[in-house]
């Protein structure tokens, strides 16, 4: 299992390919992946940029804990979680979650579980900068289930 917090650009597919190379081919039959990307609109406004704040130390621990919970709940070969912090712009990837398993049900469910848990428990906060120059904290997540 790997957890990455990145202050530089997150390249989800490269990160995924690199990580998957460490797995034995043939052991997993299913890979479920989610990538969250910054949109250029939110709540009816055009967004210019966003700052992702986190709680150094606690954020990593929460992501580790969430990944371990998934591994206890489903038979997984591996889990990868990567999340951006700092200044980002529309189109930039924010989060990558991948789960490898022998079977697709476990991979799908674990990937989604990790995303929902991350959204509700991992200490990250988004501050949007609108096209108007106004800054605002994003107040909550859209429901995912």
């Amino acid at each position: 299992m790997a957890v990455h917090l990145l202050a530089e650009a997150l390249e989800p597919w490269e990160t995924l390919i690199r990580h998957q190379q460490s797995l034995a081919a043939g052991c997993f039959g299913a890979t479920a992946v989610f990538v969250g990307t910054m949109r250029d609109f939110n709540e009816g406004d055009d967004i210019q940029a966003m700052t992702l704040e986190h709680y150094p130390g606690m954020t990593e621990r929460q992501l580790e804990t969430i990944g371990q919970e998934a591994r206890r709940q489903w038979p997984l070969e591996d889990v990868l979680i990567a999340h951006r912090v700092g200044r980002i712009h529309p189109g930039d990837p924010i989060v990558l979650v991948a789960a490898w398993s022998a079977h697709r049900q476990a991979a799908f469910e674990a990937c989604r579980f990790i995303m929902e848990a991350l959204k509700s428990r991992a200490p990250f906060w988004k501050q949007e900068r609108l096209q108007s120059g106004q800054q605002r904290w994003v107040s909550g997540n859209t429901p995912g289930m």
Partner: protein
Amino acid sequence: MTITVLYFASLREFAGRPREDMDAEGIRCALDVWRRAQEGRPLPPGTLIAVNQEYAAADHPVREGDEVAFFPPVTGG
């Protein structure tokens, strides 16, 4: 030994500072930390609390050496 108090995101703006150290004397729980640091201002609704980087309730015990953080609902992912 003191208590380390951290504020994140909108709570940092509310508190007017990102962190502070506090004498542990007379502090029993996380809510005591907030009350002393914020001079009695009520906790904004929805505020989350972590003690030593684990989520905790407002009445979670706090002693010297602990790190206590206050922050709004999380919005990552």
